């Protein structure tokens, strides 16, 4: 197969895996953040029950993205991780804490506070750091000779911090919507009262970030105003938000999560549209970063054509099997 097609296939597959990660691990990270706001032990137990068969599988999508980049776009892997050395390390520590907290919580009596706290703070840090990384990527990374050429703290900028906050709120929105889908009773009503506020804050930050990107970067500005049809994506986000908002009084429990995913789809596509075909904005494109065609086709015929559909099938199967309220 042609190198170009394979590159597009793998860029698309990794983008899809990243999106799966965002909407799947996003909801369980969000539940982790809301976990910190929970009123009592009963709430906390219910919240955990809503995510615990899934969180582990959800997290593997992140590893899939990492391994996929290493395999298909080694240059992106080799630039991105050094550029975000400290935040990625922070994220890993966060993932360690929240992961073991979920398990250790069962086995402890006196130390439960530590694991409750670890689950909340871990989730918060992971979400925040992922947001800052997206923000910093959008601003652009200094690259020389196929390697990162900046400092260790360059990722801390006002814009990246704003994006970090945005993703924390975004994941909380997904988490709240997931809990509405999976729980009943008291906590369910408590969340219905709060989801509007989450939606408003997410939209506000999303709007602010979008305007800032357009102002910061002439090429993005030119891209958007040169191709006006791209505005379908933000409009999609807006429609999903309106849907979520007016759907709340109807109390159809699956509706908020689907609409929240819609909000993320629009935002994700807008981001992709702004920088396509660059994987690291305006310095490394898909073609620059791609592994040789031998590697891509070896991955394509095994992982891409055979294994990936099977993964999707059994993931969907398990979600179907475990549907319903906890």
């Amino acid at each position, binding site marked *: 197969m042609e190198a170009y097609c394979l590159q597009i296939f793998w860029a698309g597959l990794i983008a899809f895996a990243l999106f799966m990660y965002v909407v799947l691990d996003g909801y369980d990270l969000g539940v982790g953040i809301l976990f910190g706001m929970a009123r009592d032990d009963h709430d906390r137990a219910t919240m955990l029950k809503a995510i*615990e068969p899934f969180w582990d599988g959800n997290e593997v999508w992140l590893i899939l993205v990492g391994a996929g980049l290493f395999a298909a776009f080694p240059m992106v892997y080799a630039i991105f*991780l050094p550029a975000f*050395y400290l935040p990625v390390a922070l994220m890993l*520590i966060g993932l360690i804490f929240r992961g073991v907290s979920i398990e250790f919580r069962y086995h402890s009596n006196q130390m439960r506070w530590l694991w409750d706290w670890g689950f909340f703070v871990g989730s918060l840090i992971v979400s925040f750091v992922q947001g800052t990384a997206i923000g910093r990527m959008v601003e652009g990374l200094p690259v020389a000779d196929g390697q990162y050429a900046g400092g260790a703290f360059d990722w801390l900028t006002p814009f990246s911090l704003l994006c970090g906050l945005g993703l924390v709120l975004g994941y909380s929105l997904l988490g709240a919507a997931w809990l509405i889908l999976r729980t009943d009773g008291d906590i369910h009503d408590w969340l219905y009262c709060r989801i509007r506020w989450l939606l408003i804050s997410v939209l506000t930050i999303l709007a602010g970030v979008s305007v800032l990107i357009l102002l910061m970067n002439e090429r993005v500005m030119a891209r958007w105003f040169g191709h006006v049809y791209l505005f379908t994506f933000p409009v999609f986000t807006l429609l999903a938000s309106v849907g979520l908002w007016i759907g709340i009084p109807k109390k159809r429990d699956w509706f908020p999560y689907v609409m929240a995913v819609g909000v993320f789809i629009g935002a994700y596509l807008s981001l992709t549209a702004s920088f396509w075909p660059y994987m690291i904005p305006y310095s490394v494109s898909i073609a620059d970063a791609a592994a040789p065609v*031998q590697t891509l086709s070896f991955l394509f015929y095994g*992982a891409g054509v055979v294994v990936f559909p099977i993964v999707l099938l059994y993931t969907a199967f398990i979600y179907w099997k475990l549907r319903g309220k906890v």
Partner: protein
Amino acid sequence: MNLDPLLLSRIQFAVTASFHIIFPAITIGLSIWLAVLQGLLLFTGNAIYQRLFDFWLKIFAILFAMGVVSGVVMAFQFGMNWSVMSLKSGSVMGPLLGYETFTAFLLEATFLGLVLYTRNHVRQGFYFFSCCMVAVGATLSSFWILCNNSWMQVPLGYELINGKIIPVDWRSIVLGPVFLNRWMHMLVSTFLTTAMCVLAVGASYVLRGRHLSESRFMMRWSLVTVAILMPLQFYLGDISGKYMYRYQPAKFAAIEARWHHEQPGTEVWFALPDEKNQRNLFSIHTPSVGSWIATGNWTAPVSGLNDFPRKDWPPILVPFFSFRIMVGLGLLILGMGWLGLWLSWRRRLEETRWFLWSAVLAFPSGLLAVIVGWFTAEVGRQPWVVYGLLRTSETVTPSLTGQNVLTTLIVYMLVYSLILFFGCYYVYRIFRMGPTGEEVGNPAVSRLSGVH
């Protein structure tokens, strides 16, 4: 202070990799043990298997969670600390590790969710199927990891273009000459590790006269496993050595502490290698056996470290000693297995308290052997990351500062110590409770309660 990012990165990799290997080394074997127990339960309906399954599943869940989180660190570390290696050899190593995630990791994690949380809600046959999927995932994962590592040890099927390693022949990359042997060696070692842990748990209950029927089953099962697999493991290890002699002669010379070319080669059983003067102190050795171990021929020539340029020498002490510790532990495990089986045959197993005590104390022997075995393999591969192709010193991330690596190293060590401490403590509590079918900890937050 002048901190060397290369040295610190190597220490960091050694720490995170050694910590991580603990968990797969136990959980691969444990996942198969759990599938076997569930299968026995399905076909016999005997409640013993149910209690044993519940007991080991709780332990598995804790170890697996720690294995997952420490494995995530590994997945990112190549890019964080070794970005030049990632860039240069990513086209070969990336797909092998990628296949691990695609075929193994997702399977294992997804079905484990079912196994842990849905036992009362799915049919027993399907539950057994889920247990098998977890075991298949764990085994496949070791397949790809060993593929990748075997290629790093004996790289084949590539060409160098502009300093980058480009794959040419995937067949020889994936199924290289040393792969099958090394994979089997690793798989058998995980079975032995699990068996020694199961044996120790059984023995400790017998010592206290508790859970006797469960313990008898555990001891019998693990003793048979050890008695059969340990000789096989020695055989696999011997083949591994012969491959090493052929493909990595410098590493072989370091493990044997052989300084000069010899024909026939002497086998040094024990010594204190003195690298500066290129000699062995306090050496205990036998002539000709070295040639036989390397080739199966008593008079074959064997190379010494002096046959290689000084800059291509691996460190000597670590491979030399870790290899000997591994073999010593192997002999210990073999002795335990055969002696235990003999005692069991003479119906004296449960009265022979010193043997039971030794079995309890030997619980980490398999695990330690796995760790020192990897030390031998990985330190012996130095100074190369990809043997003969890519030097470790040329692959560290250029933008990395010593302070960054030191900071993260300290934080990882603190976090790992903390979770290892609590992990061991919780496993110990489950062990104290025993296979009684009751829940440990607070029943209000029990895993299986309250799910509809």
